[in-house]
């Protein structure tokens, strides 16, 4: 039995549309394009649950923009009023507590989903040709989201906001030659005050909306290069693919609902898991908190920052840990994409995940005592994997034989 809708994608029903829809379609084929890209769009039939995070990230981004817009309407970016305006949102604004809780939970789970999404790309080799631009646009987005999150965390102007900002601006100040200038561009004056807060408010805002633009690019890339899949081989026949609607829509929907449940559990029942109590004390430049640490999603980079004995070196290591990912398509020359068929890279990549987590734990302990060694070893391994193991493995690794087709075989879930 043939399925005509999966064969002929471009014979869109332009002619069938009449009235306003037909008028529009004739001038700008939105309906045909939507049908082509979101209805009959073909995806490998073996995508697993890790492929849900793309859709999840889009939905969370929209939620962040929606809640953020209304929060911004009630927020005052001055050092005297910022903390109190956030308190007023939480207490007096009708439904404000929910708005703010969604925004905070959203920020945490956005970063969490982004890390999972990134790991999926690493594990299944989704950065390899022809998906290099897809990969790079994703990394650009990661940097932008991290900037947005950093700026956003500063806005409530609590103790952690203030002292976190203090560490960041001083770290930037450690850059040789231009450090002082850079620091001044960030702070806007000789102390962290109104100008700084206002700048970061605008930065938070602008970055968030720029991310939407890069999401557009990223999604466009995936629609041109098509999705990778757990086996890492390209589908060759229509039998190896399934259409986005209804197959992957129905799967994405389940993923989204399960994600929403995790989201709600954290938001409604365990908010303490994500909030930092110290940030409910207003910023006090005269009183340094006993224990300054960033949000969990920055801890690995905080670990790197502290593991290197020089301030600038630490900053360099933290930034390089992401920059090195940009070079990944050219560091890993192996033709095999999926780690499933790479006996060296698979355990080595799990090691990278462990090293990343260990950097976070070391960061949480301020790399004191034994944690200094842990942080350094983890840092060494992290960079070692990308710069040494991966390039060498592409040459010497004996990969397992690739299957010839994505079509389901017996015992394949």
């Amino acid at each position, binding site marked *: 039995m043939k399925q005509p809708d999966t064969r002929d994608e471009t014979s869109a029903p332009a002619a069938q549309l009449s009235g306003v829809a037909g008028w529009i379609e004739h001038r700008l084929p939105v309906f045909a394009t939507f049908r082509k890209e979101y209805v009959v769009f073909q995806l490998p039939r073996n995508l697993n649950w890790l492929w849900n995070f793309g859709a999840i990230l889009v939905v969370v981004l929209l939620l962040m923009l929606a809640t953020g817009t209304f929060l911004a309407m009630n927020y005052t970016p001055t050092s005297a009023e910022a903390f109190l305006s956030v308190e007023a949102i939480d207490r007096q604004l009708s439904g404000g507590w929910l708005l703010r809780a969604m925004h905070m939970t959203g920020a945490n789970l956005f970063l969490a989903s982004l890390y999972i999404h990134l790991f999926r790309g690493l594990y299944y080799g989704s950065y390899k040709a022809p998906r290099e631009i897809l990969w790079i646009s994703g990394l650009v987005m990661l940097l932008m989201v991290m900037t947005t999150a950093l700026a956003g965390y500063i806005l409530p102007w609590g103790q952690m906001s203030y002292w976190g900002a203090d560490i960041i601006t001083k770290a930037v100040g450690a850059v040789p030659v231009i450090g002082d200038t850079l620091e001044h561009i960030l702070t806007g004056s000789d102390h962290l005050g109104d100008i700084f807060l206002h700048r970061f408010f605008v930065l938070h805002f602008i970055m968030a909306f720029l991310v939407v633009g890069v999401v557009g690019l990223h999604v466009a890339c995936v629609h041109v290069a098509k999705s990778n899949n757990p086996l890492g081989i390209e589908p060759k026949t229509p039998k190896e693919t399934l259409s986005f609607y209804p197959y992957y829509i129905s799967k994405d929907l389940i993923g989204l*609902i399960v994600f929403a449940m995790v989201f709600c559990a954290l938001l409604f029942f365990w908010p303490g898991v994500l909030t930092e109590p110290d940030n409910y004390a207003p910023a006090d430049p005269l009183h340094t908190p006993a224990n300054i640490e960033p949000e969990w999603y920055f801890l690995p980079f905080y670990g790197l920052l502290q593991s290197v004995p020089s301030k600038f070196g630490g900053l360099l290591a933290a930034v390089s840990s992401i920059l090195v990912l940009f070079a990944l398509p050219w560091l890993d020359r192996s033709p095999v994409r999926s780690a499933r068929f790479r006996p060296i890279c698979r355990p080595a990549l799990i090691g990278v995940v462990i090293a990343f987590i260990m950097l976070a734990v070391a960061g949480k302990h301020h790399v004191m005592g034994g944690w200094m060694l842990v942080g350094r070893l983890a840092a060494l391994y992290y960079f070692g994997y990308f710069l040494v193991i991966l390039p060498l493995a592409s040459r010497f690794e004996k990969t397992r034989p690739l299957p010839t087709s994505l079509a389901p075989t017996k015992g394949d879930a």
Partner: protein
Amino acid sequence: MVRFSFQHRTAFAAALLVSLPLMAQAAPATPTPPVPPHQKWSFDGPLGRFDQKSLQRGFMVFNQICSTCHGMRSLTYNDLSGIGLSQQAILDLAHAKQVPGPADAAGDPTTRPGLPDDHLRSPFPNEAAAAAMMGGVAPPDQSRLAAIQPYGADWLYAFLTGYHMPPPPGAPVVPGKFYNDWADGHLIGMPPPLMDGGVEFPDGTPDTAVQQARDVTTFLVWASDPHRNDRHRTGLYVFAYLSGLLVLAIAWKRKIWNRGKTRNAQDADDR
């Protein structure tokens, strides 16, 4: 600083990474403060709820005792509807306070009676004045006290019931300081605030210092997290909704994907 000696300097990185969880236990980052004994609170846990009666008694304690030195500036009088105060009670409460008003025709500052929208009046005009009056340290604002303080409710209760008069033998005696088991260094400038019969509860609850401590702790936790009851209730509704939706979504997905499998079998037959 934590001293940690490593014997296996030449160990492989991988081997070290495996052994890390052991180190996590061996190397606490900072000396941990003593843990106050855990109390049973109705508002604990993911489904906990504040006891409205206890909140109202707690507010009486706060209003009559704590608020003479501590502010709670993030709250408005209206927010007290959250503990079940009537609009009239809130209006009366606000009206009883004089707050700064607009300048008069001559440009002199005036005061006016408070309104429900006004924030709770702090006992001191500013932090410096508070510090000057209270022996150098301003009494902390209590809006988020229970959230900021480690072990929140348990610590507050332990602290409020942790004074020793006279101090235990051997404890240093400093004039103007009081001995408390849970204060930093066991000495604090705040005198014991609660005593038996210090506040009379109209609902017949025994007015012991311990009861007052329980109630005012409940009130302070509410002040730090005033929407907890709403949050937990809304959460349950949302969860029930999502669970129903999940069942439907799973049913839909199964139906569609089973069709996919059939399609594939048929395709195979065609070949």
